[in-house]
């Protein structure tokens, strides 16, 4: 068996407001190194909630979470932020960029925060990544000045800049037309094949999901194999 990049053991999550609500019930799942996994399920079944836990942004859950062999529950906010920075890339459905910064600055920011490379090296990396995604001409524009599809690719470039262990996406193609969606899928696939990057992507798009290595189906708060 291949090395596991991401693994959960009996993760449970409750919402207390407005009513007590058991959202995630004994979720145990994993993602192998280099694997491209998609999560499908009906609206409201808890996909996003799970993804927020896996991305370490939500720490209010029960059960165990492992990333790259390291147990994450119990770490403090500072440590989790560092792990998010170095090992996880996140692509949202809505392209979250810092509107007042240029495309290039947006992409460089996580690498500057990581602080492992010089500013020059980071700049070269960022330009390479933008080129890979076909948006290098946009590098010096303000992030608010480019199209939706371009923004999504900038967000992917930002997720890639620190060479993370895994990239998570919450409906990353949900806002794109089918051509752009295919484009994003192809980029993911290429990175997965060429660089051995792992992907965990929530999607409602059957075609998208079918092309991935494995589909995890979710019912109300549970995983249906």
């Amino acid at each position, binding site marked *: 068996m291949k090395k596991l990049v991401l693994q959960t053991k009996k993760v449970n999550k409750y919402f207390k407001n407005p009513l007590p609500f058991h959202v995630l019930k004994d979720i145990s799942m994993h993602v192998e190194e280099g694997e491209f996994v998609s999560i499908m399920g009906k609206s409201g079944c808890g996909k*996003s909630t799970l993804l*927020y836990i896996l*991305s370490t*942004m*939500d720490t209010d859950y029960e059960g165990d979470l492992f990333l790259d062999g390291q147990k994450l529950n119990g770490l403090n*906010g*500072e440590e989790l*932020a*560092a792990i*998010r*920075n*170095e090992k996880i890339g*996140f692509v*949202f459905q*809505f392209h*979250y*960029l*810092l*509107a*007042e*910064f240029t495309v290039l600055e947006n992409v460089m*920011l*996580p690498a*500057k*925060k*990581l*602080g492992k490379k010089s500013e020059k090296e980071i700049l070269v990396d960022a330009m390479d990544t933008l080129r890979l995604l076909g948006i290098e001409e946009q590098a010096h524009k303000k992030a608010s000045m480019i199209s939706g599809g371009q923004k999504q690719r900038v967000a992917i470039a*930002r997720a890639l800049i620190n060479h993370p262990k895994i990239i998570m996406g919450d409906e990353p193609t949900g806002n794109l037309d089918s051509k752009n969606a295919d484009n994003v899928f192809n980029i993911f696939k290429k990175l997965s094949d060429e660089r051995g990057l792992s992907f965990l992507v929530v999607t409602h798009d059957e075609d998208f999901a079918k092309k991935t290595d494995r589909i995890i189906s979710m019912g109300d708060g549970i995983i249906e194999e």
Partner: protein
Amino acid sequence: MSNFKIILSITRIHLLTRFKQTSIAALGVTFGIGTFIILVSFMTGLNSLLDGLVLNRTPHVRVYNEIKPSSKQAIEFANEYAEAFHVIHSIKPKLSQTRIHNALPMINAFLADERVKGISPQCAAQVFYLAGSLELNGRITGINVEEEVGLFNFQEYVVEGKPEDLIKTSNGVLLGAGIAKKMSLHLGDRIQVNSSSGGRFALKIVGIFQSGLAEIDDVQSYVNLRTAQTFLGEGKDYISDINIKLWDMEEAPSMAKEIEAQFNVSAIDIKTANAQFDTGTSIRNLITYAVSITLLVVAGFGIYNILNMLIYEKMNDIAILKATGFSGRDVQWIFLSQAFIIGLIGGILGLLLGFVVSVMIDNTPFVTDALPTITTYPIDYNPMYYIIGIVFALSSTFFAGYLPAKKAKNIDPVDIIRGQ
């Protein structure tokens, strides 16, 4: 360190893209600090002017012989009536001279005391200034010019001539400005003076003296100590006042008590004699700080408001930063550093504003008869006020920024991302 650099680069963009609001917040601080500097420089300038007017001139301890009834009346010495209740009518002071008994040994004792910086003996005499048939009531004090200049800044009150000229001219006089005006006398003129014992003396005016207090300038003149003693027909040991200057003014009250206990004289200290000046100074300081703090609190609310607004506008940015690996503390520092920079820039401009206005006030003519040595409004350029000012600016903006920054630190990115 690199972390610090990114935080500052984010801070810079936040501040620059909201240049207008940022400038208004900084101007609030500028105004508060500027006002503080102007107020405190002017007020303390005024304080030291007034203190100088009276306190520099005033001995720390004045030793004199007060004419008063004996505190122990004759009957109290009688043992038979020791238990009785005494009723004495019409008590009068005992006939005695206004001189200090045994003044010379006393002076030597003071000089030997290591708390004492210096002493200046005086000899006061009641006189009449003669102007034709007119006799003006007055007072002439014999002084030791060198000591008066050295200890009590006497030269500041000599508006014409030089106090040193008195030493060279044995029958010279430093005439009160009020008297000179009334009698139309000028430097170099002669004046006739009758002593209360009847002798008549001709004095040469070597200087004009002006204290700024009319009731003094209309009666008071100064001559050499020896001249005054001759006036009274007395010898070298005739001293009516001994003025003492101490190294440390705070020791004056205890010293005065000691002297009264040790010698049979009255001694009054500067604190008792000029209590109202201390009060005036502390009230002026209180007003200065109260006004400045109020202005800074107002400026602080401005900063608080602007940062709070900024944080609402920047919710998405905060969520993105946190999602991409910035910790709560990083985000807190982004906003704290914004407050800090607003405070620093506003504060430095405030110091500049305060300094420029202070210089303008300092050069504004201010002429008054009451203060002969003053030509412009007084300003105290103590660098300490500038340090206090910038510390004020930074700490008030820090407090104003603290709550918004803390709020930003605790924003849950999941809430923001879900809310989209």
